[in-house]
């Protein structure tokens, strides 16, 4: 089978399996954890576009995730807006805020990373200190469950399906972007900025667009998170969350959308599975990260692809 088609069939099978999972009536807690995986995967997919495709290292995605979460929470809890409105508003608000990043897209590498980290710290402080709006350290309570067309998604199964549907929608959208003129151009920017410019690619514009898309997607993920856990605290959106999203993308495999999803699953589930070992769990988690990175830049997705290679013909 041709490698692109093999990948497409695998993606389809995984999606079907995720959609069919509730049929097996898993424990409520399992569904909750898998919902969190889908939410994190969504945020990680946005960063995959920014980092894996366009080559811009951001350690500030928690800022947009947090802005989306609080925007959606406030709009629905305080203003009574329907979920679907709050959800898209969360994405748009995060995207608009990301426009402040436009001037820093001329930075690259470590300088860009530190600038985005600075932004993440700023947003955390705003969430923590603007008590009149965000509830400060006490957090934001009373966020309603997600609802669609007037039906409250009260059962964990429905909330889970919503999260999976959003993650899948984002996945397929970014897949289309990856295989388009835009996707090839940002890929070109990552590999050689001078050459891209010499081909007429407007480098600064496209880099900024990547920031806006990644922020929009992080905002959507934040909204899902707000309505999933229904209580927000600023400590959910510290720079550690930004680092987590970065870890998902890098261990999953740079440039691979499927990898971002796998990375999210590892980062969300492994510490949970290791809960039994108590104090040592972060130690083991750290060791796992180091071992996975020994696979090389391809991460988990690259490793799997190597395992599948004997079964697929290279693209003609």
């Amino acid at each position, binding site marked *: 089978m041709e490698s692109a088609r093999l990948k497409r069939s695998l993606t389809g099978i995984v999606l079907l399996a995720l959609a069919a999972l509730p049929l097996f009536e898993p424990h409520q807690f399992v569904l909750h954890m898998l919902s969190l995986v889908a939410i994190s995967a969504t945020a990680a997919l946005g960063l995959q576009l920014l980092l894996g495709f366009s080559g811009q290292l951001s350690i500030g995605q928690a800022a947009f995730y947090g802005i989306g979460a609080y925007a959606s929470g406030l709009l629905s809890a305080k203003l009574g807006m329907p979920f679907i409105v709050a959800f898209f508003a969360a994405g748009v608000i995060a995207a608009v805020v990301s426009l402040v990043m436009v001037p820093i897209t001329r930075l690259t590498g470590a300088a860009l990373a530190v600038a985005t980290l600075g932004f993440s710290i700023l947003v955390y402080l705003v969430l923590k200190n603007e008590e009149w709006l965000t509830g400060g350290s006490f957090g934001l309570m009373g966020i309603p469950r997600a609802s669609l067309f007037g039906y409250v998604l009260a059962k964990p199964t429905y909330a889970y399906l919503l999260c999976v549907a959003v993650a899948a929608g984002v996945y397929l959208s970014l897949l*289309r972007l990856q295989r*388009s003129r835009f996707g090839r*151009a940002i890929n070109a920017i990552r590999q050689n900025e001078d*050459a891209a*410019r010499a081909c007429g690619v407007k480098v600064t514009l496209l880099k900024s667009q990547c920031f806006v898309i990644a922020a929009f997607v992080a905002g959507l993920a934040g909204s899902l998170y707000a309505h999933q856990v229904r209580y927000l605290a600023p400590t959910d959106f510290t720079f550690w969350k930004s680092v987590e999203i970065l870890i998902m993308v890098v261990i999953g495999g740079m440039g691979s959308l499927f990898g971002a999803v796998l990375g999210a699953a590892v980062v969300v589930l492994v510490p949970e599975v290791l809960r039994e070992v108590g104090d040592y769990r972060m130690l083991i988690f750290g060791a796992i990260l180091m071992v996975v990175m020994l696979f090389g830049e391809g991460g988990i997705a690259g490793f799997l692809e190597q395992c599948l290679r004997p079964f697929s013909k290279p693209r003609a």
Partner: protein
Amino acid sequence: MPEALLEAAGLSRRFGGLAAVDAVDLRVERGAIHGLIGPNGAGKTTLLNLIAGALAVTRGTVSFRGADITRWDAARRAQAGIRRTFQNLKLFAEMSALENASIGLHAGTHAGIFAALARTPAQRAEEERIFARARRALEFVGLGGDAGVAAGKLPYGHRRLLEIARAFVAEPALILLDEPAAGLNQTEAANLSRLIGRIRDAGCTVVLVEHHMDVVMSVCDQVTVLNYGRKLAEGRPAEIQRDAQVIEAYLGRGDAPPSKHALA
């Protein structure tokens, strides 16, 4: 006098105290193959970078098709029809040869983010056009069989040709070739000379920076010689070959290029 496609007047670029290009006037006629030669460090690549917009000029002006483009950035110049290759190969190593060539069509095509998300009929038709043209450009330079190969995995000579395909694919009015024969053997260099002729015949004006004198002398209509950032001589290849100053610039110094590259 034939029409000038590109004109540089008093063009200078300083790096700190060093004038890499010093008050150079250059006139490239439409339809010409214009050679830029000179010893190492003469400022040829700097001059090319000033024309392509990769470097800002310190003084002087560049005009293209009669418009002053001195302040235009590289992307805008590329869009306007000035394309280039790089002396030290700047390919998109992980992308296939076909995708590399397709990036050359970025300017001049239009589908944006929303068209890609919706996969509109116009977007799909444009994608087909892009890849059909990219494929033709690969065939034009003789890389038709390498379309699916990652650029980083191509042999050296093929990478040089891919640089040319990427610059030529949009059929620009002006194409700047920066030492395309560097590292090629005699057969490959002879093929390259023919390719440069075909690029001109396809309607592109060519500026050629080259050390390989066989290539320069066989294809150029006009040659400008630079030395220490200044214009030393200008004329038809045969005239340049006889010019005493040029011979001295090349041969009268300890670091003259090896004999193969020297004037025949």
